[in-house]
């Protein structure tokens, strides 16, 4: 926080009129030559590596057979509607579970920061939750919730899809809670001291001073976990609902050709690109903010 005062800048017009010295012109020319050289070297090495890979893969003795069983355009076209229908389930589940897990994670993190003896059971429960669900494999949570809980035959049991989503929310809520908590604890105590000195209550301090800074700081790791969640939502297919990977599996079983898997994989990557791009952008922005430029 302690920063030197901003240096006094000359006006832009004055800067434009200044002619650089001979030494500076030599340096600039040298740097330009270096940049051109770097670009050329990068292009050449990329081309060389690409050619090598293509030759190695297509020149392999089994290439023709692999291409037929993994990269058959006709089979891809036939499987596309089913795989897309499955992917739509992934997308819907992702949105619901991401929102649910973020809210649950934030709530658990806040409960863990509460002080005072009254809140001991709440703190203990929240801590127990994060320990349990970060340690428990997602598949086991899924099986217990989607196969075990309906077995109780209780009135008003939600559908399997909702139970599966709940398993995802519970598991990812545990990870996200720890990310939020790390963010909250990274805010310097002097910020709390300043807020409390102004007469803000603990809750107001959290709401207006700590959380806005903490969430901004941990946005990249939060989004990273959402990208991971995107791949794990498909696991609900273990309980019956057909997601993109399961649809590909069904199509593969019908044709004995693995192309639908490749298709599903490509679609997953395409779906992840916008999310990852947002993550990178947020990371870059927070890095720039910290360097103060």
């Amino acid at each position, binding site marked *: 926080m302690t920063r030197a*005062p901003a240096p006094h800048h000359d006006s832009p017009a004055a800067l434009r009129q200044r002619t650089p010295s001979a030494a500076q012109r030599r340096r600039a020319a040298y740097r330009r030559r270096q940049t051109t050289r770097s670009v050329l070297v990068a292009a050449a090495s990329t081309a060389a590596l690409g050619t090598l890979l293509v030759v190695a893969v297509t020149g392999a003795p089994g290439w023709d057979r692999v291409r037929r069983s993994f990269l058959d355009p006709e089979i891809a076209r036939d499987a596309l509607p089913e795989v897309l229908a499955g992917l739509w389930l992934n997308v819907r589940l992702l949105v619901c579970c991401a929102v649910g897990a973020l809210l649950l994670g934030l709530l658990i993190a806040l409960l863990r920061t509460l002080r005072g003896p009254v809140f001991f059971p709440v703190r203990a429960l929240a801590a127990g939750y994060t320990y349990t669900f970060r340690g428990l494999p997602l598949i086991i949570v899924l099986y217990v919730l989607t196969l075990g809980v309906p077995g109780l035959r209780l009135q008003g049991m939600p559908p399997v899809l909702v139970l599966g989503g709940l398993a995802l929310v519970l598991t990812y809520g545990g990870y996200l809670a720890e990310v939020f908590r790390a963010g909250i604890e990274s805010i310097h105590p002097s910020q709390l*001291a300043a807020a*409390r*000195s*102004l*007469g803000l209550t603990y809750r107001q301090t959290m709401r207006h001073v700590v959380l806005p800074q903490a969430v*901004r700081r941990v946005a990249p790791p939060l989004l990273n976990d959402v990208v991971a969640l995107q791949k794990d939502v498909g696991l609900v297919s273990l309980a019956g609902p057909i997601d993109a990977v399961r649809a590909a599996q069904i199509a593969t079983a019908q044709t004995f050709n693995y192309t639908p898997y490749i298709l599903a994989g490509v679609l997953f990557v395409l779906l992840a690109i916008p999310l990852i791009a947002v993550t990178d952008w947020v990371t870059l922005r927070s890095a720039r903010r910290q360097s103060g430029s």
Partner: protein
Amino acid sequence: MAVLTCRGLRKEFAGQVVLDGLDLTVEEHRVVALIGASGSGKSTLLRCVNLLEELDDGTITLDGEEISDPRVDPDRVRRRIGMVFQSYNLFPHLSVLDNVTLAPRRVHRRERAEAEAQARDLLDRVGLGAKADAYPDRLSGGQQQRVAIVRALANSPRLMLLDEVTSALDPELVGEVLAMIRDLKADGMTMVLATHEMGFAREVADQVCFLDAGRVVEAGPPAQVLGEPTQPRTRQFLKRIIDAGRL
């Protein structure tokens, strides 16, 4: 009547005694400067008065109310006290205007328009009106510290606690902050300031207290404490300051 009375304050950190039976009285409209070496207890005293630290013994009375009573709501006490820190502690995610209006809006439940008008008026008065919409990291250290003072003033405090508010500043920026404190004194604000600026303490303070090992060793008018100290430890401290060319 005294605004602030401290009696026999004691505070330990991990077995180390930081305040050791400290007494202090601050009358209304008076400015008290706390001087002393680092670790003598100046900052801890201010933090105890603002109830940021829990006392190990002694009593603190603000306007006749004993605020060191654990049944007193600390949030209600802090609303009446303004505190400014060495490291400014502005909220980096809020604009200057939002930094200043946060407490009036959330603590005193003022309307946004009313709070902002008051904040802009205060900022204008200290020449920071143009910076109202800027973010703290765009400001120089001196400007940030002046905003921090304005933020504390927006609560209309009874008492201001200033904790080495110029120690983190470049020498050429110290003056603007000191000028602001001088204006506060002229307006009759009651203040306790911990400082290393002996020249400023001499000029602005009504009383100078020399702290050593958690006690007030010597207290009196600036001319007496800084000019003709009676206690050997005060003389020793001032000699070191003079040797360092800081007086």
